[in-house]
């Protein structure tokens, strides 16, 4: 993750200064010794034993931590709230094998998420136990904008141990391959998705570590990916690894009329009653072949995506908020008919109810066997109806020119359960009533 990396770099930068300082001293001392002289500070403490200044990361200012995001509500946090810079996506397989054990795991998960998102001082267990908290956020845990968004996979409902088959949301299935996918079984599917977002990577990882510690018997991490939101460069929507602004056009879910038609399962939706207030969460790990992309002309990049790279404006427009009238460009002379943004959102009356609400993160995960950077997009979208929205969108994108440069390699379909309403509620409680 870049924030990790930046922090790391600033630390190693500081370390390098420190090392240089320390190494400098013997050099001087040697020279002094050869000339028979002494270190200028001779007489005080031994310069080779003294410590340098404390290393502090540039981004470690505690006041930079974000305020708490309310945990309780009709919908889960981490969906419509603005995405903070850091995220950790962890997919678990449930090892609990009775309904009671599953309920216990979900209740524990709720308690931990409630505490962590609110922040505070961890319980003191005394000196005869290991500490209750990892301590990575210090003695007083800051909320730092933490959200923990829980999604349930089809496999959990289909597990006969829990008797939940009747309660499975009607569109929820295992994610199967689209023609341009290259899904790797070890990073595909899973029972429970935790989307953990926070202002800083350490906050997100602290939360994952805490939750895993408290739920070890009931669920195990199958795979995980860390993500980050790039800062605005120079403004507008953060850029993806292709250098383009990604996910600019989202439906206005702040408008309840829109949210109830595109985002949330409501009492008018053909879904089990417990699911009201929830939403389908599609999580896809999409590798981006950035070396290949960087060898393509800007002209081609822009026509593949449908936006100017510099400004993020749609082709044929001047500003990022301008909208090209596709009806007037029916031949695709201004924006090719195969441009990504045109295929995914044709902006017609017929396709308006297939719009999805995206909340993506970049990922950066080492290299592949050929030495290419393993980077990509953690694609997330939320929608009322998995089939009518995401699947329809993705079907329109089959064979788009960009498929050579990207490869969906994992992830899954999940149902983000309704929000935890109050201090006596827990994730998925109505599922068991």
């Amino acid at each position, binding site marked *: 993750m870049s924030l990790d990396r930046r922090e790391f770099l600033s630390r190693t930068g500081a370390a390098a200064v420190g090392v240089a300082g320390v190494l400098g001293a013997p050099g001087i001392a040697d020279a002094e010794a050869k000339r028979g002289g002494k270190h200028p500070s001779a007489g005080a403490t031994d310069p080779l034993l003294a410590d340098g200044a404390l290393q502090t990361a540039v981004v470690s200012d505690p006041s930079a931590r974000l305020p708490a995001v309310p945990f309780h509500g009709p919908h889960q946090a981490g969906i419509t709230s603005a995405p903070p810079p850091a995220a950790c996506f962890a997919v678990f397989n449930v090892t609990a094998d009775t309904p009671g054990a599953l309920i216990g795991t979900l209740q524990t998960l709720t308690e931990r998420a409630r505490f962590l998102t609110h922040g505070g001082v961890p319980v003191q267990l005394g000196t005869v136990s290991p500490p209750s908290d990892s301590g990575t956020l210090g003695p007083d845990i800051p909320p730092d904008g933490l959200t923990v968004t829980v999604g349930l996979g089809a496999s959990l409902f289909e597990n006969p141990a829990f008797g939940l088959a009747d309660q499975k949301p009607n569109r929820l299935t295992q994610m*199967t*391959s*689209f*023609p*341009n*996918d*290259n*899904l790797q*079984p070890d990073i595909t599917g899973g029972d429970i998705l935790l989307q953990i977002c926070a202002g800083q990577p350490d906050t997100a990882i602290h939360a994952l570590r805490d939750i895993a510690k408290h739920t070890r018997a009931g669920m195990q991490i199958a795979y995980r990916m860390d993500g980050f939101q790039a800062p605005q460069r120079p403004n507008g929507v953060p850029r993806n690894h292709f250098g383009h602004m990604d996910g600019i056009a989202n439906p206005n879910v702040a408008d309840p009329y829109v949210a109830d038609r595109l985002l949330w399962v409501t009492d008018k939706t053909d879904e089990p009653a417990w699911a009201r207030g929830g939403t389908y969460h599609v999580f896809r790990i999409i590798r981006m*072949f950035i*070396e*290949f992309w960087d*060898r*393509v*002309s*800007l*002209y*081609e990049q*822009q*026509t593949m995506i449908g936006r*100017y790279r*510099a400004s993020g*404006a749609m*082709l*044929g*427009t*001047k500003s990022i908020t301008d909208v090209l009238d596709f009806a007037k460009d029916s031949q695709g*002379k*201004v924006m090719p008919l195969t441009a990504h943004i045109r295929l995914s959102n044709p902006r017609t009356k017929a396709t308006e109810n297939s719009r999805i609400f995206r909340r993506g993160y970049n990922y950066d995960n080492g290299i*592949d*066997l*050929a*030495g*290419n950077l393993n980077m990509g997009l953690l694609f997330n979208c939320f929608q009322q109806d998995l089939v009518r929205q995401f699947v329809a969108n993705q079907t329109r994108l089959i064979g788009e020119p960009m498929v*050579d440069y990207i*490869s969906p390699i994992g992830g899954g379909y999940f149902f983000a359960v309704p929000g935890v309403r109050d201090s006596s509620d827990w994730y998925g409680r109505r599922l068991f009533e």
Partner: protein
Amino acid sequence: MLGRLREPLPASGIVTSGIRLLGRAGDRGLLYAIPAEHLLPHRIAPPRCLPASQRQTERDLLPSLRRDYAEPAVCVVEVGGEDPVAKRVEYCAALSGAADAMLGTKATPLLGLAPDGVTSVTVRFLVAPARTIRVRHNFYEIADPSLTATPCGVEWLDGSGNVVRSVAGCNYQLAELGPLDNYRVDVVHELITVRADVSNLAGAVSAENLAEAESDWLTAHLEWLDIGQDDGAYGCFGELGGEIDGTAAGLVGGNASGQFTGFHKIELDLWKDGNLAAAAADTATLQQLLKTLIAIPIGTELPGTGGGIANWVLRPHEVLEDATRDTLTGDDDYGSGTGLASITADVAAVSQMLGLLAPVLDPLAPHLVARANGQLSAILAAVYQTQVDGTWVAVSDLPTLARERVDAAVGAALETLARIPDLLTSTGNIAPLT
């Protein structure tokens, strides 16, 4: 006439109230801009003079014709040029709604209109360096008797030399690449060889000789890769290409999918499963697929796609891009461990395409082809060094340094090859019309 625009062309330099002398054409003719309310290129013939079929077309077109006629137009007229046939040449365009990016397609004089704010244009040619010239009074002209190359693209530049818009792009068509015909013939011959190789494979499989089957598989697969169609690169053979040499990626059920066919499925049967019965069935399928492919007549295009081959030959880096993405990652190794042998065939395919393009590329970018050829040789050197006792080692089993040497050589060649599509196709930076 080349590209036509469909947006307004505000051009205040051309006044609609009077005739303006634009300058002297290269062939001694004089060029004038003439405002013309009703001098658009197309004229409405009286419907009664037209056959019934065209009458309907004319009726359908009428609204747009009326719209065009309602707009002020301007014509550029050349008078007194040397061309005896064209003593008076008219190029007309509406001042708004539709205008021609470039009015003449002759090498010289080459002329065109540009909107306000465009202070110079870059004109690109087939097989000649681009020229950037000034725009005066919304008009530009190249008059150079020594210029014989065909113009094919125009970019509008602003006062700072930034590309405001790439108005028309050069797209090399097959006609410009004579040797492509030879290449097509080669492809046909190679396909016939592949078919014979696959027959040998079928024979070894039915004789239940696993070792010979594996050897025959490699021979056939390398012959196929010589065409440059690894994993269905760039879709020149359409879906058939993917069925012949695609991987199981994207198929529901992966390796177990009934839709997984072709070389890599047989590779899986032979090396991983040791299943000769499955290999026999899958080889029969492959033979059928090749038969289908060869039966498609090769005319101006390779079978499968219209225009795909033109695109693909102009993009010789695509073959190695696919190799680095699918082969050097071990992703398309279904057990044979012959990915590095595949790289040698990929290099041969790229080399052949480079030879084809060299006459076009050399004037545009001297030394590029030579440098690329040197880098292709370096790939082969690095790849052959990975062999142990003359046999191939799977990419995933290579010592780190040997693998990195191959990656380095392929990566370096790719950075060079990546320039070629831009040299041969429309270039420049499209940006909003300001």
